[in-house]
């Protein structure tokens, strides 16, 4: 009789553990998928930007005689970003360079009043602003998903399950150096 009771207890305990394991396992899978989904959100927006660039360069070219180099660089960076053999980290590096180059372009535009008044360009500029805003939003969504995921794989008890699943920490997007750097006024005076 006692053996049966003991076995029953053991069985119930094992079943309970199995259920808890399944719940934790599923929550981790959903967090992992969330990260991938958020990553694809960034991807979609980056692709939109790739689609916009040829049009933008073509419009701007007619007006900007002195920015050949910058325009060539943007075109080159775009085709590099489209290369399917790049690793994720490399691709992000290229995209960041592209962001910086486009920002420089928009600053250079200030010197071409005729271009700024061009209807077509104004439309493209609004689209670019829109896409940049969307990219920023998608990156933040990705970072939030990664933070959630990283918390789960490091915190008890999900970390135990995560170890059996072989899940690794993921890196968040960092703000680029150029975005983060605040101008050093003291340095400017020393020059």
């Amino acid at each position: 009789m006692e053996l049966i009771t003991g076995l029953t207890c053991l069985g119930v305990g094992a079943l309970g553990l199995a259920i808890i394991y399944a719940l934790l396992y599923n929550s981790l899978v959903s967090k992992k998928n969330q990260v991938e989904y958020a990553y694809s959100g960034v991807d979609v927006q980056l692709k939109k930007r790739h689609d916009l660039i040829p049009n933008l360069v073509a419009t701007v070219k007619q007006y900007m005689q002195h920015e050949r180099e910058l325009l060539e660089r943007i075109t080159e960076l775009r085709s590099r970003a489209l290369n399917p053999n790049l690793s994720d980290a490399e691709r992000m590096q290229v995209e960041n360079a592209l962001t910086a180059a486009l920002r420089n372009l928009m600053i250079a535009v200030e010197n071409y009043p005729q271009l700024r008044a061009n209807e077509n360009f104004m439309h493209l500029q609004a689209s670019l602003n829109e896409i940049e805003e969307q990219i920023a939003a998608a990156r933040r969504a990705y970072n939030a998903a990664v933070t959630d995921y990283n918390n789960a794989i490091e915190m008890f008890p999900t970390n135990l399950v995560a170890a059996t699943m072989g899940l690794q920490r993921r890196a968040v997007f960092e703000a680029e150096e150029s975005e983060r750097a605040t101008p050093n006024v003291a340095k400017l005076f020393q020059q």
Partner: protein
Amino acid sequence: MNTSPVQAVHELEPVLREIEHERTQQVALFAQIALWSIVIGGLLTILLVSFGFGAIGLAPLGIALLVIAASYSAKAQAWRKSFKWRVMKHLVKQFNPSLKYYPERYIPLHEYQISLLFHNSPEPDRYTGEDLIEGTVGKTHVRLSEIHAQYRQETYDSRGRRYTHWVTIFRGLFISADFHKHFHGVTLVLPDTEQALLGGFGQWLQSLSAKLGIQPGELVKLEDPEFERMFKVFSTDQIEARYILTPSLMQRIVEFRKKTNAPIRLSFVASRVFVAIPSYHNYFEPPSLFAPANKLLEPATIQQYFEELQFALAVVDELNLNTRIWTKR
């Protein structure tokens, strides 16, 4: 603001003088009614009491007091109405020529409903409001009014008698403005109570409430710690929520929350932003019927109305809605 209070007083002087003149006339009339009611009621009471009618003898005095009260409320009502139609309407124009003011209209119920701001409260059984202001501030269309939404609650005591209470869902300013970006989903920014009380567990409860369908979409966890302490955010789209709530907009909402000093809530639905600012202050009301003569001709009084207007319309500037650098014009 386009006109200074001094200028506004100057431009509206004929109307203001006229309406102030009417007020003094009405107050004088009221004083006469009150005086005669007291005199007649008082004399009748003295007569009746001295003839031994006892408590019934007090009736004339009671009637006199009723007459005074009714006459006061009629006069105050008329004063309020003529102030709103003849003064406030012009003041709103002076404040911003593209705005229109409708004293007796308010944000319609269906707009209150599509905002989803109070979708967790019962449907209102009584919905009223006043002081609708509508127009374009810069590039932004905006519509606002005071509203008061209540629902009926019935309780029974131990003897089975029924009592009806009116419970306020919301009372204050309700603002609906065109948002400067396109979006398709629903994003709600609500005051955070759970996380403030229960920390991480509170956040878990919020996330659960979205999963159970009590809130739309999913819980959105944002990076700004000050914003996160004040608000909880639910959205049907994680990316869109961040497209709307940029770091700078979050900072602006935090500042706006501090300025209003009330548990404000915001929603982003159908490319519009809805803001509800709870308040028991009654906006755009005239000075008291018995205020000192020519009170409306003082720039300080007019300044107050301008300040109220500025506060009500602040959303447009505070949320930077006139910046139109994205594809929405």
